């Protein structure tokens, strides 16, 4: 690959720019509130685990993580399950209204969450799903399903058609072909799609907050509670923030070899 002069310096400066704000958050999470408010220290001088301890022992805190992970996982499973057959159909066949349907799906990926906040609230209240992980999981489908279809379509198109034809000649039924041949072939694509569903569901707040009140409240909404009568509890806020970064960081590590292709949505 051909590169540009001074690339090492550019890369290092950019990475520092990315890491510095995150470092500051991590730094603060290990400090006591007194140290945060009274002095400016580049690293914690009296490191404490008190903030993390409070989150892990207080149910109203750690239940937020469980709630968030629950709806993210439900959403990922639903999105991939419905998107797989559709991706195959879009990749292999032409049918009435296929292009319009594809565009309509894409346009839903782009629809602003703010537009749907209020109608979703009405809809999920009406069918008694309000304040359950299912409401958030289904609501997030509006942008994750189209995205999953889009990514998987790219990966299915990378599988030569001859493989389908040979399988059918060998007497494979369609469901069997799908499960035994196609899915293993595009396993990395499914991983990438799952990664993106996870990512967009994990980072979204507006819908998740609007559709929950007590029982299914996501961690990102609980975080706003750190304002109390005694002022902001900065250390606790920072610790909660750091803990929301960790699942993402873990997931990235597992898919690091596919990240680049994945971000191109299987279209390079």
């Amino acid at each position: 690959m051909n590169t540009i002069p001074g690339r090492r310096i550019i890369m290092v400066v950019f990475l520092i720019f990315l890491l510095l704000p995150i470092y500051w958050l991590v730094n603060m999470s290990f400090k006591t509130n007194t140290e945060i408010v009274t002095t400016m220290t580049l690293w914690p001088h009296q490191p404490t685990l008190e903030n993390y301890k409070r989150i892990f022992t207080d149910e109203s805190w750690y239940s937020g993580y469980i709630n968030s992970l629950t709806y993210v996982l439900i959403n990922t499973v639903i999105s991939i399950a419905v998107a797989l057959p559709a991706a195959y159909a879009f990749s292999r066949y032409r049918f009435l209204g296929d292009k319009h349907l594809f565009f309509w799906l894409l346009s839903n990926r782009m629809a602003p969450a703010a537009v749907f906040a209020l109608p979703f609230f009405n809809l999920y209240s009406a069918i008694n799903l309000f304040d359950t992980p299912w409401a958030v999981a289904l609501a997030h489908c509006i942008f994750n399903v189209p995205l999953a279809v889009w990514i998987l379509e790219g990966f299915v198109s990378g599988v030569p058609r001859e493989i389908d034809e040979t399988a059918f000649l060998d007497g494979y039924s369609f469901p069997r072909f799908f499960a035994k041949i196609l899915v293993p072939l595009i396993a990395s694509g499914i991983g990438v799609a799952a990664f993106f569903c996870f990512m967009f569901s994990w980072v979204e707040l507006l819908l998740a907050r609007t559709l929950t009140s007590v029982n299914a409240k996501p961690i990102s909404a609980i975080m706003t509670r750190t304002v109390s009568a005694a002022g902001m509890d900065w250390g606790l806020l920072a610790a909660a923030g750091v803990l929301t970064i960790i699942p993402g960081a873990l997931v990235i590590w597992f898919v690091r070899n596919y990240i680049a292709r994945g971000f191109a949505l299987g279209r390079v």
Partner: protein
Amino acid sequence: MDKTINQKAWFLVLPVFAVVAFSAILPLMTVVNYSMQDTFGNNQFFWNGVGWFKELLDPSTDLGGRFLASLGRNLLFSAIILAIEVPLGIVVALSMPREGWTVAVCLVILALPLLIPWNVVGTIWQIFGRPDIGLLGYTLNSLGIDYNYVSNEFDAWATVIVMDVWHWTSLVALLCYAGLKSIPDAYYQAAQIDGASRWAVFKAIQLPKMNRVLLIAVLLRFMDSFMIYTEPFVVTGGGPGNSTTFVSIELVKIALGQFDLGKAAALSLVYNLIILIVCWVFYTVMTNAGAERPEKKGAA
């Protein structure tokens, strides 16, 4: 391109259609319904026709003024972040190490901001920029620059823009990197034999190869910045005054804050329509770019 026509494929698409229709068409019909009605409270509605839409598009009314002002701010914001993130993303992609363990490290760090929940992104920058406890705010102020994103409009804008650049440049960079990776080495060798300059290599080989991914990048970045809500809301709350109130923030204020259903619904529809049009333009350009490719190959 040699897809077979098979109407039974609809059965494979049906689950997707059902799921998305449930979450898209049903709620959107509620919105259409609200946008045509007004209420005296108590769930009594009456027909208002296109009244809300007229008000929305008339800058002299309160609603219209707020909508058009936030739309203008949002377009300016989108233009600025695209102008920064796209070139910067290309530069970063070109600066990626060629091989070795550093590649994985760079990729992981680049992807990191993308997986942080949006309100935590807001929180990170809210803390980072505070003059009393944030590294950035503290450093700027001790250097003699009077920086305060809570009271100064310019500082608020600068913070929101730098935050977005921090948050999303990686996306552009990763997309471009994926495009660059797909260029065979033979192209570069050929360029070397021809004695092409670096700039010529960039213009003739790398940029054309990145065309498609750049299009995706611009589309995603435009859309996401056009509907940005959480991050600026956490950092500035739309202020100082209304200076960082973008369309989504305005909409949520009207819909969930004031519970002005009719106004919010009309705003939603116009907002959605703008997005639909932009999306369609991109989609058309993208599919055309895809269709042209094989022809070019044939000609060469």
